[in-house]
């Protein structure tokens, strides 16, 4: 699956591991079930570790283990299942998770703007050929009303800080 990260299509170094198979070498992403079963061996292996959460698995379930992961992938089983928007924010804001937060599953170009604002920084997409479209979609709005996790200053802040600066 093509991966958008840092405004370009990049090589994906991560491999998703099945729940039963022997783990491949290198950087692997495991399901929560496998993490819970094999915590100790997963912690001691070489290579980075990632975790993929289904949309009914809150990051709260691994709140104490987050230091073990360099990547959390959050699944969108359908575009309209918006739980992962809250999960991404929770990871960044409450748990100060600094690794990669990746959107996987039914990821739509028209949601990229919101995902980016909620703290996602990598996106698995179906078609790399329309990268330009995706990047445009991520920039369709220059002003935002809410404080969030992208670099954009909220309108609230701009209004009152520009005013203060002018005074």
């Amino acid at each position: 699956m093509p991966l958008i990260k840092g405004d370009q299509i990049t090589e994906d170094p991560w491999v998703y591991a099945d729940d039963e198979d022997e783990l491949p070498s290198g950087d692997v992403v495991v399901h929560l079930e496998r993490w819970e079963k094999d915590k100790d061996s997963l912690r001691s292996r070489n290579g980075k570790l990632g975790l993929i959460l289904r949309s009914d698995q809150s990051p709260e379930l691994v709140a104490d283990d987050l230091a073990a992961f360099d990547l959390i992938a959050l699944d969108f089983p359908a575009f309209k299942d918006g739980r992962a928007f809250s999960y991404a924010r929770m990871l960044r804001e409450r748990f100060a998770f600094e690794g990669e937060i990746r959107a996987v599953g039914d990821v739509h170009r028209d949601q990229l703007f919101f995902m980016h604002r909620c703290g996602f920084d990598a996106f698995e997409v179906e078609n790399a050929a329309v990268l330009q479209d995706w990047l445009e979609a991520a920039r369709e709005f220059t002003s935002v009303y809410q404080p969030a996790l992208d670099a954009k200053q909220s309108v609230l802040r701009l209004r009152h800080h520009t005013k203060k600066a002018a005074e």
Partner: protein
Amino acid sequence: MYRYDEFDRTIVDERVKQFRGQVARRVSGDLTEEQFRPLRLMNGLYLQLHAYMLRVAVPYGTLSSKQMRMLAHIARKYDKGYGHFTTRQNIQYNWPKLEEVPDLLADLATVEMHAIQTSGNCIRNVTSDQYAGVAAGEIEDPRVYCEIIRQWSTFHPEFSFLPRKFKIAVTASEDDRAAIRVHDIGIQLVKNAAGETGFRFFVGGGLGRTPVVGPEINSFVKKKDLLSYLEAILRVYNQLGRRDNLYKARIKILVRSVGTGEFAEMVDKEWQFIKDGKYDLPQDEIDRIKAYFAPPAYETLPATDATLKDKIEANADFAAWVKRNVAEHKVPGYGIVNISLKPIGGIPGDATAEQMEVVADLAEKYSFDEVRVTHEQNLVLPDVKKSDLFVVWEALSASDMGTSNLGTITDMISCPGLDYCNLANARSIPVAQRISERFADLSRQHDIGDLKVKISGCINACGHHHVGNIGILGVDKKGQEFYQITLGGSATEDASIGKILGPAFSYDEIVDAVEKVVDVYLEHRAPGEAFLGLVDRVGLDPFKEKLYAAH
């Protein structure tokens, strides 16, 4: 009223451009209807029985005359010359062409209007009291906070794909004209013991298949915490609201399943993480928005107007209209004019382009340029001098908007029903029209007094039948339209859900049945007793006897 600054304008203009691109992708075939559907729904564009329907947001029901004229222009240019005002204070157009919708939105943007989040599983247009700012006894103008919530909820990055649609209503009055207890969140401005103003939160009210009167989860939230508290509620709901069953996805089901106390605790726990931080509402912003809602330049007038008194004595029709349709204004010498969009035999909430222009002219001339849309599908001129009431009434009457039936049995809420809607099981509009014609005699209506009749064409309850004093629900029985009657509902501060009277009536029988209900009321009521009072006192039995005895 609120005016856009550069930021608001940019956001709406960028939205028009974005949607134009999405429509172009659909028209070119880059997007299938299935892919386009969620995108158009985020912008109020539905595919109905016969055509696309576009719902335009009227934030908290406030319009300028310029905006009202634009709505008329749109009705003429893109539709068949009329529009339909809705129970969420919005307006719907029933016949726009997909290819023209981007131009329509661009036209709207020139008067600071849009269709953002008028559908879809997101936070919808925030509604309010149509008498906001002009009702006596109000704590503050609730529209200040509606506008703050409008901005906060617009393109909210986290809450645009909720389990289901989400409706917020705000009022600042003890008399609830905004039906806040049947909203996902109802907010009431209140004062605490220390005299500070804050917000009382009701969560999990709603109609639809499972009508619920929303319970209170917090009796006082400070002003600065408005947005962080809203974020906390929405964050709990976004994660835990059901997504496996469309009919159990609203927040009311979550609140009911975990219990009100537990839900309040979950919200509070979430709130503690985000409180006192970047979500704090700056007092500067409250002040900035409040300035837009400052009272207009009222004249100092005597409380009673001599010319008005003469006109009332000389003209019984005008006198009846003043009595029924003009409400008490907080400023002496002014009145709040209710414009009925329920002419006898008309379609509730419909207005032609010409009627919209008449209202716009009257607002400009006589009401500080402001119009309100009510959730009961009427319009309001909030600030009319008592000495101008007669000319306003004459102008309204000449355009079929001067019916003195506010709050009477013919002032019905009705959903579009099977005439337009692809969810409906039965027609609503013709039932409303036939009831209206049956009770056409105004003196009979005035004798009956206040009586709220609400009609829905299916269980989704867009016509608010659950909270009608008399509710009518259209159902399908083996391909035939039938109508179930409920009695005793209310959407106001004494909110309650009506009780089902008994077996449903056919399309041909329903008007007679409603008339019999009214007969029972007239026969049994004590002097001055309201319909709800009688139902409380005597229960449903006398009604059942009258309606079903002959069956």
